C-alpha cells in the first residue's frame, strides 16, 4: 500500500485549471520531490493533500484512507504532517512552548483544564527530543521572534515532526535561508528516520537532489515527468520547461 496516493486529481479556480488529472503514488519511506515553475500548482497540491482546499474532483488516500476535506487537523491525526512555505509559528512564545503545544496535540492532556501544562512530563520530554532532532535545543527558552530565519525554518520542520507523522510534507523548507543554513537543513532532513515518507516542494534543485530519490515535475498542473534524479536531469521536456542547462 502506498503511503500517499493521489488519483485523477483536478482543481479549478473558476475557469482556471490549476491541477489536471494528476496521479501520484508515494511508497512508504520514499523521499519524493515535486518541482515545477511558479504557478505549476505545487502549493495548491499540498493544500489539497492536507485538507486546506477541496479538490474539484479526484481522490487522495493517506495510507489507504481518503482525506476528509476541510479538516486539516484530521489529516495530521491520520499521519500526515506539513511544514509551511511561509513560517507559521507561535511568534510571541518560546521555542519550547511551540514544540510543547505541538506535542501536546497528540497527548490526552490536551483537554486538561485544571492542571498546569508543565506538569505533563511526557509531553515536555517529546518536545525536547524534537528540538534536539532539529538542533534547536540551545534556543529552547528564546521567543520565536528572536530566532534567526534559518532557525525558524528548522522550527517549522520540528513542529511538523512533533506529530510523529508517517508522511512529512515540506513546502520549500530552504526558502530564504543562507547557504550555510541550507546545508545544515539538508543534513538535518537527511538525518530523519528512513521510514519517514517525505514529499518535498522546493525550487532549489541542489536541495532537491541532496534529499530526494524520486522527482515529479509539474507544469501547468500536469505531471510532466516522474523519475530519478538522472532521469529527470536528462529529460528534454523538463530541461525545456524548468531545469535549464545548469542542472542538465
Amino acid at each position: 500500500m502506498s503511503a500517499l496516493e493521489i488519483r485523477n486529481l483536478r482543481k479549478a479556480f473558476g475557469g482556471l485549471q490549476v491541477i489536471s488529472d494528476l496521479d501520484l503514488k508515494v511508497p512508504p519511506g520514499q523521499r519524493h520531490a515535486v518541482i515545477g515553475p511558479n504557478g505549476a500548482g505545487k502549493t495548491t497540491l499540498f493544500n489539497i493533500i492536507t485538507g486546506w482546499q477541496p479538490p474539484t474532483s479526484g481522490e487522495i488516500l493517506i495510507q489507504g484512507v481518503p482525506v476528509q476535506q476541510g479538516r486539516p487537523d484530521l489529516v495530521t491525526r491520520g499521519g500526515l504532517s506539513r511544514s509551511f512555505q511561509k513560517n507559521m509559528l507561535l511568534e510571541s512564545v518560546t521555542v519550547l512552548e511551540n514544540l510543547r503545544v505541538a506535542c501536546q496535540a497528540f497527548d490526552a492532556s490536551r483537554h486538561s483544564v485544571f492542571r498546569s501544562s508543565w506538569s505533563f512530563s511526557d509531553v515536555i520530554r517529546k518536545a525536547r527530543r524534537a528540538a534536539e532532532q532539529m538542533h534547536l535545543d540551545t534556543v529552547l527558552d528564546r521567543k520565536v521572534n528572536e530566532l534567526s530565519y534559518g532557525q525558524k525554518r528548522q522550527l517549522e520542520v520540528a513542529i511538523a515532526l512533533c506529530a510523529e507523522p508517517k508522511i512529512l510534507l515540506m513546502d520549500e523548507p530552504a526558502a530564504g535561508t543562507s547557504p550555510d543554513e541550507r546545508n545544515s537543513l539538508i543534513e538535518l532532513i537527511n538525518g530523519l528516520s528512513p521510514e519517514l515518507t517525505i514529499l518535498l516542494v522546493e525550487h532549489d534543485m541542489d536541495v532537491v537532489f541532496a534529499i530526494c530519490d524520486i522527482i515529479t515535475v509539474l507544469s501547468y498542473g500536469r505531471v510532466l515527468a516522474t523519475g530519478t534524479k538522472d532521469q529527470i536531469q536528462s529529460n528534454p521536456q523538463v530541461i525545456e520547461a524548468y531545469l535549464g542547462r545548469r542542472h542538465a
Partner: protein
Amino acid sequence: MSADVALSSEQRIGVLKRLPLPASRRAYAALFALFAVSLCALPSFVSGYVMTLAVEAMIAGVFASGINLLTGYTGLVSLGQAMFLGFGGYGIAIGTALLGWPLWISAPVTLVVVAAIAAPIGAICTRTRGVEFLLITLAFSQMFYGAAIKLRWTNGSDGMTGIPRPDLSLLGVSADNPTVFYYYVLAVAVLSLLMLWRIVTSPFGSVLVGIRENERRMMSMGYSVANYKIGSFALAAVICAVAGILQSQYTYFVNPDAMSWQMSGEGVLMVIIGGANVVLGPFVGATVFVVVKQALSMITEEYNLFFGIFFMLVVALFRGGVLGFISTPIGKRQ
C-alpha cells in the same frame, strides 16, 4: 514528574515568559500577595464609599476577566459578553425570587444553564472571526437585551428585584453588612481569578494562546480549533455570569441594562486598560476604570468626554495596558 524532565528555575522563568508577566515568578507572586493583602486590609482603612467603589471594581474585574479569556487569550474580540452578565443576574433572580430556590441551588444551576446556552451560541459565533465575530456577538447580545425588555415574567424593562445575598448566619454575620459583602465579593473574585489562572496555564489554555497566535498552525498541529474556541466562549460566559450574580446581589436587582452593548464595551475597555492576556490585567483595568470614571463624574457632567481622552492616553502611552507596560523591560518599551 521524573527527574530528567524536572524543570530548572531558568526553564520555569521561560515558562513565565509565555505571558507578559513581571520578570520572575517571585516578583509576580509578590505582586499578587501585595494585591491580596491590600484588598483584605482595605475595610480597616477606608470609608464606606471607597469600599463601595472597591466592590464595584471587583465585580467589574470578574466580568472583564471573562472577556479577557476570550479576547486576550483566545484572540476573539466580543461585544456581546454583557448578555452573560445579564444571564447571571436574571438566572439568580429567576431561581431565588421567582422559583423560590435557595441561593446555593440557584447559583450553580444558573452557571450550568449559562454554559449550556453559551456553547451553541459560541458554536455559531466562532464560525466567524474578526469584525464578523464582534458583530455577531453584538447581535446575539442585542437580541437577548430586546427579549429582556419585552418579557413580562421578568418585569420587562423594570427588571427583577428581591435578589438575596448569601445567608452567612452560620458565621454569625449578615451579607447585608457592606463590610461582610465586600469580603464575600473579594472571596468570589479571588476564586474566579485563581480559576482563570489555572485555565490559562493549563494545556487547554496553551491551545487558546496558540489559536490567538496562529489559528492555521494549530489546526495543522492536529487541534480541533473549533471545539477549543467554543470551550473558551462557554468558560468566558460562565465567568461573566459569576460577575452578573455578584452584581445583582450587590444592587438586589437586575434589569436589561446589564445586557446592554455599552456594558460589553466597558468590559473590553477594562481589559485594554489593565492589559490583555495578563491574568490580573482586567482587575487593574476595572479598578482604574471605576476610580477614574467616578473621579471625573465628581468634577464634570461631561465625564465621558474626558474619560475618552484618558482612554486614548492609556492606549497611546501604555502599550499592552498598565500591567503589560509595567512588565515590559524599559529598553523594550515602544
